[in-house]
């Protein structure tokens, strides 16, 4: 270790580049890669540290430096000195506010490694960006301002890093220059952090006293901290083990991305190997089908491979023509992953719109995309105290544990064993936003024990006997729009036409089946889910089912539509403007809601999402209930 700092940076290799470019290229070609994140609270100096790493490794060009020097004087926070943070705070909004609001990726090289740094924002509401950066990181560098010690955000970020499975944690106690390089300050912070780390299960971390601004212990040991005997930051980053090495020692798994079939003579399965390795002659099993075969070759454009390992993208061919398509997982034959449809999961909510218990979201895990619902969380974590808190749902940045069910079985492994088969995202079906990230812990047994019982008299038989095509006439609209009145008229007409019908009315169902439900968003979703399931049983029995529910959310109406066979779900929008419905106020509910005596009332303090393409629309301002009913009947004809 050199005893002066920055005079001989270990990673500036200009001399080699100038003298022997081929030797340099050979060196660069054999470098490994380490991905890491920096996180900490606002003003802990993350951007400055990264700016320093880029600057010291000559990743900043002269023209950028000129612009930086000028900018530093204009908007910098370091007086006349260069403000490295300006180098990395990319978006205009951030430069004005002086904080990093989105994760940014930076790159630099040393002689041994290429580094990808995710600069993760410290601002509390941007936790989702931190999780994004942490999910691909081999190492986390958690910054602490030596003057401030362990803060709430330090705990939150450490916890998130641990949660996402980062095993290498560096505690960089920054701004040591501002505390006179005091060993006492450093030791106190390390002691505080050790206690906290233990409490959340972090077994190991490496603490180092640094100054991103002055460059202490970044490259080489600093003269200012003779009491510190540990590694400097770069030295440490160059030597820690990367994730892919560990993944290679696990059993072979490869999620299939794409089936490659250019002609009748070639059929290969393409994917990125998640864990383990594969070679010709290996016995494999395709999940979830369980079919087995043998690998004949591992194909790439650079030639067939003798073997391929975790982290490589390849195409494999089998000896047998077995079914295998996107979403399947190819595994070593004797130790396959599990298949299940109900799980204990840890979920990090990433969207402004809170989690809707019971709503169907898309779940993407590996290359599998299925419909999934989440139950009410068992608990959420208070990230400041790490205590379990009872909650009804998860809001933006909340982390909780909940049961998750998928509409068909998926291939998975617990996240702790395999990130690729245990990590998932949830996608909103209407907005397509990525709303959550999650980790599967283990499967719940329901999946294996409940089977579908086949019956001899099927739905077609029920319908044939009643001489009608079963249908669900789903009336939706504001309270007081006339849903129940019109549905009643329609049922009367159908009855006269000798049709077998049943009317499920919102208020009536809440007296029985759904009397345990209130009017919160979660309860409204569950209300509609149950009604949907009942309607499904009734159409299976051959009935024409009429339902009259406000059913304010598009997502839940879509959920019911998906339950019912195609063409049998008829959405009828009873279109009445709010002013008209409120003026009618048949049950006096609007008056109560306006007075604040009735919470979560649709149209007042709870949204109504009007249908975009309903099968039938009736305008109750222009039509009487009888006219509306006649209009609906005409649209429904013929009924067989």
């Amino acid at each position: 270790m050199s005893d002066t700092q920055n005079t001989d940076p270990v990673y500036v290799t200009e001399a080699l580049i100038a003298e022997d470019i081929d030797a340099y290229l050979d060196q660069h070609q054999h470098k490994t890669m380490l991905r890491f994140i920096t996180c900490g609270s606002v003003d802990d100096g993350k951007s400055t540290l990264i700016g320093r790493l880029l600057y010291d490794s000559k990743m900043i060009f002269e023209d950028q430096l000129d612009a930086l020097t000028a900018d530093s004087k204009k908007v910098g926070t370091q007086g006349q000195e260069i403000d490295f943070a300006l180098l990395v705070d990319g978006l205009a909004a951030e430069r004005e506010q002086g904080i990093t609001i989105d994760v940014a990726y930076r790159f630099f090289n040393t002689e041994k490694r290429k580094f990808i740094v995710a600069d993760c924002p410290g601002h509390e509401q941007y936790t989702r960006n931190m999780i994004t950066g942490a999910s691909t990181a081999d190492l986390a560098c958690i910054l602490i301002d030596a003057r401030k010690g362990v803060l709430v955000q330090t705990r939150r970020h450490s916890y998130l890093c641990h949660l996402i499975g980062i095993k290498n944690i560096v505690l960089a106690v920054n701004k040591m220059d501002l505390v006179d390089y005091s060993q006492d300050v450093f030791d106190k912070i390390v002691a505080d952090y050790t206690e906290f780390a233990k409490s959340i299960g972090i077994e190991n971390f490496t603490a180092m006293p640094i100054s991103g601004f002055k460059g202490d212990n970044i490259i080489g040991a600093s003269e200012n901290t003779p009491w510190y005997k540990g590694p400097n930051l770069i030295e440490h980053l160059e030597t820690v083990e990367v994730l892919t090495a560990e993944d290679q020692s696990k059993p072979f798994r490869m999620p299939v991305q794409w089936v490659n079939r250019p002609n009748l003579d070639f059929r290969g399965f393409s994917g990125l190997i998640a864990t383990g390795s594969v070679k010709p002659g290996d016995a494999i099993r395709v999940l979830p089908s369980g079919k087995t075969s043998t690998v004949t070759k591992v194909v790439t454009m650079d030639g067939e491979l003798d073997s391929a390992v975790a982290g490589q993208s390849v195409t494999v061919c089998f000896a047998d023509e077995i079914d295998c398509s996107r979403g399947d997982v190819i595994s070593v034959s004797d130790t396959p992953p599990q298949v299940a449809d109900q799980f204990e999961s840890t979920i990090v909510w990433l969207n402004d719109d809170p989690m809707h218990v019971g709503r169907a979201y898309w779940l993407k895990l590996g290359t599998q995309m299925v419909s999934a619902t989440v139950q009410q969380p068992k608990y959420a974590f208070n990230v400041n105290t790490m205590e379990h808190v009872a909650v009804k749902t998860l809001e933006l940045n909340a982390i909780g544990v909940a049961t998750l069910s998928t509409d068909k079985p998926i291939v998975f492994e617990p996240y702790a064993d395999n990130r690729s088969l245990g990590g998932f995202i949830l996608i909103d079906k209407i907005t397509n936003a990525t709303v959550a990230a999650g980790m599967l812990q283990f499967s719940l047994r329901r999946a294996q024990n409940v089977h579908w019982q086949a019956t001899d008299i099927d739905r077609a038989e029920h319908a044939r006997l009643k001489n009608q095509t079963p249908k669900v006439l789903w009336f939706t609209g504001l309270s007081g729009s006339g849903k129940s009145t019109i549905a009643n008229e329609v049922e009367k007409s159908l009855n006269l036409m000798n049709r077998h019908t049943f009317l499920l009315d919102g208020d009536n169902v809440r007296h029985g089946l759904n009397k345990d439900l209130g009017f919160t968003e979660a309860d409204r979703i569950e209300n509609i889910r149950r009604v949907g399931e009942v309607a499904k049983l009734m159409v299976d029995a051959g009935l024409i089912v009429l339902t009259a529910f406000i059913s304010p959310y598009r997502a839940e109406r879509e959920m019911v539509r998906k339950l019912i066979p195609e063409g049998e779900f008829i959405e009828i929008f009873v279109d009445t403007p709010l002013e008209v419905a409120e003026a009618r106020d048949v049950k006096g509910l609007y008056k109560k809601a306006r007075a604040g005596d009735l919470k979560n009332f649709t149209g007042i303090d709870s949204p109504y999402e009007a249908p975009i393409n309903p099968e039938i629309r009736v305008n109750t301002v222009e039509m009487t209930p009888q006219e509306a009913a006649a209009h609906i009947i005409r649209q429904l004809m013929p009924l067989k």
Partner: protein
Amino acid sequence: MSDVSRQTLTHLQRLEAEAIHIIREVVAEAENPVMLYSVGKDSAVMLHLARKAFYPSPPPFPLLHVDTTWKFQEMYKLRDKMAELSGMELLVYQNPEAAERGINPFDHGALHTDMWKTEGLKQGLDKWNFDAAFGGARRDEEKSRAKERIFSFRTASHGWDPKSQRPELWNLYNARKNKGESIRVFPISNWTELDVWQYIHLNDIPIVPLYFADERPVVERDGMLVMVDDDRFPLREGEVPMMKSVRFRTLGCYPLTGAVESTAKTLPEVIQETLLTTTSERQGRAIDKDSGGAGMEVKKQQGYF
């Protein structure tokens, strides 16, 4: 698994595997993907990765060149050759309005980029209803790119909202969108300029000869060496093209692209020169400097790649 020895993957192997994975995900999930092909070195690498991703099949999508009619002649030659080599369909789009109004880099300045490139790109994507477009942008190029996702969501009017980007976790990419919306996908986001050069070197990927030094006719204008690539170049009074040994670090419209004096005739020499140089890659381009420090960010919000 004791019979299998561990294999340490180099950074280029990991970057290659990541890019191939990204390209396959798009093909699996998008309805109508396209690869934007600008004929530059980044496009060359991206195209090579696409060929690797689907080998022995040809990549199952076309190449789209948004042409400004002002590219270097050598670029057009390589473009046609690579399309043939890869077995992919080549689509060329030129904004008809820009053509009709005779928009050119000499008389119209920023309007040239706006109409031929930004508008041309939007029109081209709309014309064929592409819902996913691969681009060769890298995060190390420019500050706002450093914060862009690999799958970058665009509104129906091609706008980019940096504040509402989708979180991107592990290697799970969300390619879902509503009708009219689209995604731009950057498979080589995590590559640096050096990585690109080294990959071209290792894989022997064909690139436009303009990247190598040669005697070329140039004039000096506003501190930039500009190549006189065809007879549309309006010489100012007293200007005489001189032959100089020059090469290009980036390739765009020839009147807007500055050459550097160089003797680097081989790839290692080019890489050597690149590494020892003290100005950044995009500096030869005028586009980043508009509207203060946020030039590219503003352009991206308007729909530029």
